[in-house]
């Protein structure tokens, strides 16, 4: 055959050269589908196993005494009063600082920023920070807040450490919420002679607020479950009083749980399970709230 000949070759219909072997291929298909469904089932089953174990272990010791007692060396008298109060205090600090900073940074990046070195640097930093292990934030909190600023192992030091940890998440979710606001709203605002900030404050922020709040709740729910960074700043696990200022010593629910799990006695393990039930219930409520907000938001658009 001439090499430069691009006309169709004299193609023999060599259909018999194909041996599709469909039976074997369909068997492989079935095995593959089985594996895919199997993996998903296993993931669901493990979640069910985990929840079931914790319910069985923890339900027996979950009562009002447990909620309303301080830590104790005796299992039957121990409770999570200090831990719950500490969690509330820390979350208060986290919310107060992370909301304005996170939303402000999100607004800056999404609405104000020009494409310059500063914006790019901030964006690179945010995506990098999202991948830093949480315990490293703990070390930063230990060196900066506990030692350098002299906050000690206080609610403030713990809260600020968690603020740094969840800021990237809040910024990203704020930006996403701002992005869902139609450009028409911005254009309409500018066309009326409003400054960029007036448009943001009066039109964009209200429209984006449900999305921003959803992201905020989800970030807080992540912060509530964090243990490692607070352990790293040296938050105490045995506290028999409620914090009375942001400079008080504190413990939080996950640390209390960690402490009980680490003890050799079975009674404390059950207390840990009860604590987990409380912690997971709080998380579930927060997530339900976030989903509710998200759904209402989507319906209104």
């Amino acid at each position, binding site marked *: 055959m001439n090499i*430069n*000949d*691009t*006309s*169709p*070759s004299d*193609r023999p*219909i*060599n*259909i018999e*050269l*194909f*041996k*599709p*072997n*469909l039976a074997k*291929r369909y068997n492989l298909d079935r095995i593959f589908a089985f594996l895919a469904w199997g993996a998903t089932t296993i993931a669901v089953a493990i979640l069910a196993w985990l929840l079931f174990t914790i319910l069985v272990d923890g339900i027996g010791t979950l009562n009002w005494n447990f909620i309303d007692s301080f830590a104790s060396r005796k299992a039957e008298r121990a409770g999570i009063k200090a831990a719950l109060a500490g969690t509330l205090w820390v979350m208060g600090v986290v919310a107060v600082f992370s909301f304005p900073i996170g939303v402000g940074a999100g607004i800056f990046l999404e609405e104000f920023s020009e494409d310059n070195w500063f914006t790019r640097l901030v964006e690179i930093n945010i995506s990098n920070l999202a991948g830093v292990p949480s315990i490293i934030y703990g070390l930063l909190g230990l060196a900066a807040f506990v030692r350098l600023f002299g906050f000690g192992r206080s609610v403030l030091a713990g809260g600020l450490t968690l603020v740094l940890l969840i800021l990237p998440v809040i910024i990203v979710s704020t930006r996403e919420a701002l992005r869902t606001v139609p450009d028409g709203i911005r254009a309409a605002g500018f066309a009326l002679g409003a400054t960029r900030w007036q448009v943001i404050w009066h039109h964009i922020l209200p429209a984006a607020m449900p999305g921003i709040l959803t992201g905020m709740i989800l970030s807080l729910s992540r912060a509530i479950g964090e243990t490692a960074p607070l352990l790293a700043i040296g938050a105490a696990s045995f506290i028999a009083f409620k914090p009375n200022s942001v400079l008080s010593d504190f413990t939080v629910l996950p640390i209390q749980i960690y402490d009980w799990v680490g003890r050799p006695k079975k009674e404390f393990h059950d207390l840990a399970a009860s604590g987990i039930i409380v912690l997971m219930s709080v998380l579930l409520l927060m997530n339900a709230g976030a989903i509710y907000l998200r759904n209402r938001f989507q319906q209104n658009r």
Partner: protein
Amino acid sequence: MTQTAGATTAHKIAFQAEKLSVSYGSVMAVKDVFLEIPQNQIVAFIGPSGCGKSTVLRCFNRMNDLIPSAKVEGRITFNGQDIYDKHVDAVELRRRVGMVFQRPNPFPKSIYQNIAFGAKINGYQGDMDELVERSLRDAALWDEVKDKLKASGLSLSGGQQQRLCIARAIAIEPEVILMDEPCSALDPISTLRVEELMQELKQKYTIVIVTHNMQQASRTSDYTAFYNAKATDQGGKMGYLVEYDRTEVIFQQPAQQSTQEYVSGRFG
């Protein structure tokens, strides 16, 4: 029915559709199509958008099976065999009825792998290098890519990608090639190359082409089917076959008023 034009008797029939209707969920996309596709001819489907011409095309290799809500009624035979019969395997059918899509969709693999993939999967026992070369030659692409068979299929230009997709389709030795607006994403020169190619491929394959471009239909095809859409009670659109005949009849003396209006560019 007058819609199944009788002029197709000169050739053996590849496909025959009888009272073919397709619906997606509760929406009827196309209704009561009667049609015969003769072997080794080029049949063009024309009509305004939403008239169901692509939907009908996708019935011939049962691509509609992949859309869970799609429901096909009526009967389509391929070489006399009902392809929606439960004994007919869609995978095997698609090996025998190739398809080229609206937008070039080469796999993110090398040019060589793009061609060899279908053959390998379907258990081709012959010489693979030879098959790749032959398919690329048949698709008039060999000279342009013979020195870079290892390059990614995505590195080619749009027109080359589409010819690669044609080469990929003919590598598995189909009997029919379905083309769903194969030139709509191509520039005029690439379009011309594909049209020339179709004339050559027609020697060995039956070709059914959906096109928006009436010039293309009149230039390339032997038969033309004109589809139209009408509004339904639910406010949607439903496609139906208006007229099917030899291309010169459709374009010069169509039986239906709406065909006349469409081919003269008065709507659509």
